[in-house]
């Protein structure tokens, strides 16, 4: 049944694969193009500096944007130091025994838990049990718990990539373990850690399900005035405008505009992470 020559067959398959690649790129271009075109009538700087008006069907996205930045701030304060330092402990102090293995499994599994499950947890633990109510802090902590395993595993990867010779050299010169970590391990691992941290933050910024249950408001007439007040957040804003207002359901520019701002924020952060990683990959080649 050898109808086709080997080369013709190769050509056929290759074109098939090219088509697959093209299809993926095309799909994503189509999605983004729809968002961009849909949002054109409202896209301007005013859209960023104005709060939503007329029941979220007009005006800008200032309040949700600020809410999302606040959330990222809480996640940074909570998840980053704890996550990075835990990763240092786990990779530098803890041996290679069962405990280390156990932690790797726990962290990797928790990074894969669906975000709505974190929302469930946040509602039970922070909103109800800890009595924080539906608030910035409750949502921020929920997102922090979601980000923690991501920060830990990215930091561990970054630290693990440093060759033992760096540590051995430092210790041979009489440095203590902590001095070695402080002056050699952490600085060299910093780009990798930074990449992981930015990715974790962008994930937290883009999540809707966890804040849906723990404190996002449909409308606020002013900025949140404390960590115990409710907040508007971009991803929830997109969802709420899309499903709760007639304008959104009819594809109003406001809903596409909010989606584009969210996209730029999240993709921008991801882009920074990729650039940082690429730069340092080239610089430190062990």
């Amino acid at each position: 049944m050898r109808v086709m020559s080997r080369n013709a067959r190769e050509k056929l398959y290759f074109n098939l694969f090219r088509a697959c690649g093209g299809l993926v790129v095309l799909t994503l271009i189509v999605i983004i193009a729809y968002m961009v075109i849909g949002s054109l009538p409202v896209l301007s700087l005013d859209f960023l500096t104005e709060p939503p008006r007329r029941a979220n069907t007009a005006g800008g996205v200032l309040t949700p944007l600020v809410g999302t930045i606040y959330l990222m701030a809480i996640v940074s304060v909570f998840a980053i130091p704890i996550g990075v330092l835990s990763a240092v402990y786990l990779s530098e102090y803890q041996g290679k025994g069962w405990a280390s293995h156990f932690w790797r499994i726990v962290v990797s599994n928790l990074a894969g838990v669906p975000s709505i499950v974190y929302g469930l947890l946040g509602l039970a633990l922070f909103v109800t049990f800890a009595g924080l109510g539906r608030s910035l802090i409750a949502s921020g902590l929920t997102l922090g718990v979601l980000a923690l395993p991501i920060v830990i595993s990215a930091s561990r990867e970054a630290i693990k990539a440093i060759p033992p010779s760096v540590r051995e050299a430092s210790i041979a010169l009489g440095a203590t373990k902590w001095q070695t970590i402080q002056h050699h391990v952490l600085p060299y691992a910093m780009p990798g850690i930074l990449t992981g941290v930015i990715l974790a933050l962008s994930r937290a910024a883009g999540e809707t399900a966890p804040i849906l249950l723990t404190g996002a408001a449909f409308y606020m007439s002013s900025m949140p005035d404390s960590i115990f007040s409710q907040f508007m957040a971009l991803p929830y804003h997109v969802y709420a405008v899309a499903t709760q207002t007639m304008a959104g359901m009819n594809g109003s520019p406001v809903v596409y505009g909010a989606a584009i701002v969210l996209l730029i924020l999240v993709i921008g952060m991801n882009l920074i992470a990729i650039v940082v990683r690429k730069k340092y990959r080239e610089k430190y080649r062990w």
Partner: protein
Amino acid sequence: MKYINRTGALSRVAGRTGLKGFDGAPHLILFIITLISATVLVTVAAFLILGSLQAFRVIGIVEMLGGTVWNPTSFNNPAFGMLPLMAGTFLVSFLAAVIAIPIGLGCTIYLAEIAHPKVRAVLKPAIELLAGIPSVVYGLFALLILQGWVAQVFGLQTGYVALNGGIILAVMMIPIMVSLAEDAIAAVPRELREASYALGATRWETMRSVILPASMSGIVAAIILSIMRAVGETMAVLMAFNQTPLLTLDPFSGVQTMTATIAIEMGEAAVGGLHYSSLFAVGVVLFIITLVMNTVANRIMLRYSEAYR
């Protein structure tokens, strides 16, 4: 000298508390911080399981996992059978996988083997970027635009069907799959490839009989991990199709996934009530499903990373 003495004393204390190879205050501080994060992570699992105990005890694990009706707020006969929800999650994830696997693998092979290095240098990071797009944006697309196309192409009365969700989930899965699978192919040692060329094989033959088998475990792991994303996705499925807890595998019907059920029903369920607890039970099942998939993927991945040391 002083420093060493101090560490020595601390070290003896630490020895008794079981911290081996102790070296000073930083060690202790880091240890405590790690304990904090450990507590947080363990709390996730513990809280879920504790929350679900009531439902499993009162309703019974068999009834919950095997019951065919999910209607927890019914006035006359509330039912807590999770089967329709599991079927819903299975159906949309399955549809997504069927669409995403061939296209994703084709795209991976293109990226890894065919694309010009310059194209790859742009495309690979671009695809990684796309893996980071928030799910609510995909949901919005499915809600406003994709449903119209689905209805038209398949001649349906409404495009808000499981297939609409399957397609949008496939779009979300592909970047993850491509990114991970490409890593697996890139990890195949060059010697294998060169040996195959030396034997006179064409590029396609080398790919099919050497590269793909060698990287198969990594590719399978990539597929599993991307399906995991589909299983755990909430917003896109919430927005893409009609939420009806039907026990069906019809791609042209509305269904209700486990994730969407939690999102829709959690708000009102009274804390400590049976409905509340049953939603935790849904969360536990979801947790276990992702746990199993993750473990399987990790096992497979470990094998491929060990194969070519």
